[in-house]
């Protein structure tokens, strides 16, 4: 990359990819912003002209807005908590030398390969079905009344399903981090009189801090947009309507593209605030 000619060639060769990526991002973004300032009802008259900030005001003042924000944060927070805590424990477990290590690691990672729609369907019909589900059979075996999970405990059920999908990701990242921990540090701490719990708190956990922030950052971005799991299970009922799902309903069920687009812009702003906030934490952690 030293000469002028090679720099020019490099730019030329990068151009198609950059243009494609920019187009991919900029066109939908611009269209969303344009629609959000319009009254646009595809089945009821189409484009009805500019309306200023009316869509923004309506979206926020709707009675569904704040509960949607709340359930979004609950799902993101709940899944993060479960995946990080269990991920750290699983990573420590998988780091122990044991027989059949390779196979066990592949099995642990397997849920990540299952498509969200499929895994949600499997959970809904195989485990959580109140009549034929495995949980129902288990409950009946112990003489208890089966729980209809998705309507009675809808939020915990969805958090469970999504956590099951994302736990492998967290485990994988944390396992690679834990493998890079110098065993002499743990031995030094052992010589220094630190019992196992203290070694975990003072040596292992600080070593994992960076990996944990990365897991939190990446998962937050993806979890803000979860959709399939809600679509195939509760359809947004029983207090599981997230911001993403609310936008979907506005656009496709109410056929109000303008209102949905305004929601989309809010979602972009929310995601960026969170990302900025998280990047600063990661940045602080990466400094050391």
């Amino acid at each position, binding site marked *: 990359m030293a000469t002028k000619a090679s720099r020019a060639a490099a730019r030329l060769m990068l151009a198609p990819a950059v243009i494609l990526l920019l187009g991919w991002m900029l066109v939908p973004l611009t269209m969303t912003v344009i629609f959000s300032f319009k009254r646009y009802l595809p089945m009821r008259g189409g484009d009805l002209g500019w309306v200023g900030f009316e869509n923004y005001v309506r979206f926020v003042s709707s009675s569904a807005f704040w509960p949607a924000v709340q359930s979004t944060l609950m799902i993101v927070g709940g899944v993060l908590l479960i995946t990080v805590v269990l991920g750290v424990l699983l990573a420590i477990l998988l780091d122990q030398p044991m027989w059949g290590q390779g196979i066990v690691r592949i099995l642990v990672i397997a849920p990540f390969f299952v498509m969200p729609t499929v895994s949600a369907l499997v959970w809904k019909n195989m485990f959580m079905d109140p009549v034929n589900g495995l949980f129902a059979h288990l409950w009946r075996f112990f003489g208890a009344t089966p729980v209809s999970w998705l309507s009675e405990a809808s939020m915990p059920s969805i958090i469970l399903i999504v956590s099951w999908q994302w736990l492998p990701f967290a485990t994988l990242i944390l396992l690679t981090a834990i493998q890079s921990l*110098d065993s*002499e*540090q743990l*031995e*030094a*701490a*052992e*010589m*220094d*009189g*630190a019992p196992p719990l*203290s070694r975990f708190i*003072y*040596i292992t956990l*600080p*070593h994992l*801090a960076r990996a944990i922030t990365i897991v939190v950052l990446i998962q937050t971005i993806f979890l803000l947009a979860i959709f399939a799991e809600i679509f195939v299970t509760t359809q947004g009922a029983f207090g599981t309507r997230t911001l993403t799902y609310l936008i979907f309903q506005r656009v496709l069920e109410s056929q109000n593209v303008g209102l949905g687009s305004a929601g989309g812009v809010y979602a972009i702003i929310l995601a960026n605030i969170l990302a900025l906030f998280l990047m600063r934490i990661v940045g602080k952690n990466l400094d*050391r």
Partner: protein
Amino acid sequence: MGRIVLDQVTKSFGDVTVIPPLDLTIEDGEFAVFVGPSGCGKSTLLRLIAGLEDVTSGAIRIDGEDATSISPAKRGLAMVFQSYALYPHMSVRKNIAFPLRMAGMDKAEQDRRVDLAASVLNLTDYLDRRPGQLSGGQRQRVAIGRAIVREPAAFLFDEPLSNLDAALRVGMRLEISELHKRLKTTMIYVTHDQVEAMTMADKIVVLRAGFIEQVGSPLDLYHAPRNLFVAGFIGSPKMNLIAGAEAAKHDAHTIGVRPEHISVSATDGEWSGVVAVSEHLGSDTFFHVHQTGLADTITVRADGEVGFRHGDRIHMTPRADVIHRFDEQGLRIA
């Protein structure tokens, strides 16, 4: 107090025996160095004493108390690791205070001991830095500081200088020796470098494949190596080992002559050969001599001013009173 006794200690990993039955006593206040080629079991032996590995059989006694099944923390030993094993996310102060904090010592006493250790080791200006911001020598000192604040019964060093450059190594060698003179605490030091062993030790333990080849003071080992292995390992450059007819003249299977015990001359001497390489160090000159009819290469030390060059024929005479004689089994003939 720190008298460490190993009684018939063995260690195997699966079917592989690393340490065959071994007896060793390290007296209180002694600076003992375990030395040997890599893979000779010296680090394993240190880890057995530390308690980081369990002995397969035998007993380890520290100050007369059986420590064989006591956890590493309770043995009252402190260890300095080859990689220093500092805690990267803690400041130097917190690193040094960590063992005290784990022992539940009150904050004022912790600070007092850390400040004392820091002043001994010239670390006072660096207490608030993290290990990543320190040089190799400073990290080494932090690791030593973390060991001395515990006031242990004995210090264990696992090749502590092997990650430092040559100049720093000489400096740290002196600092550790000085520390030992001041603290008068038992120290066990593992190294593969015989120069470190010779310069620092009160007692050298030469190991090969888990067996103790010889135990003694540096000069004992230099003047009276018990066998060919010790003879070849201790001393720099290595002792010249000569077998065959020349050895038979001295009623031995092999004779050993140190390079510093051979005098050179241009005209006459007992042996002769052609100089292959001459290394001029200023103070000394080493000649590597070929075509002697005795061994592949004979190494000779001469004064710095002696100026033979590649291809010169020289004559050599060994000092008769310091020829080491060994029998067929490689053992020393007294």
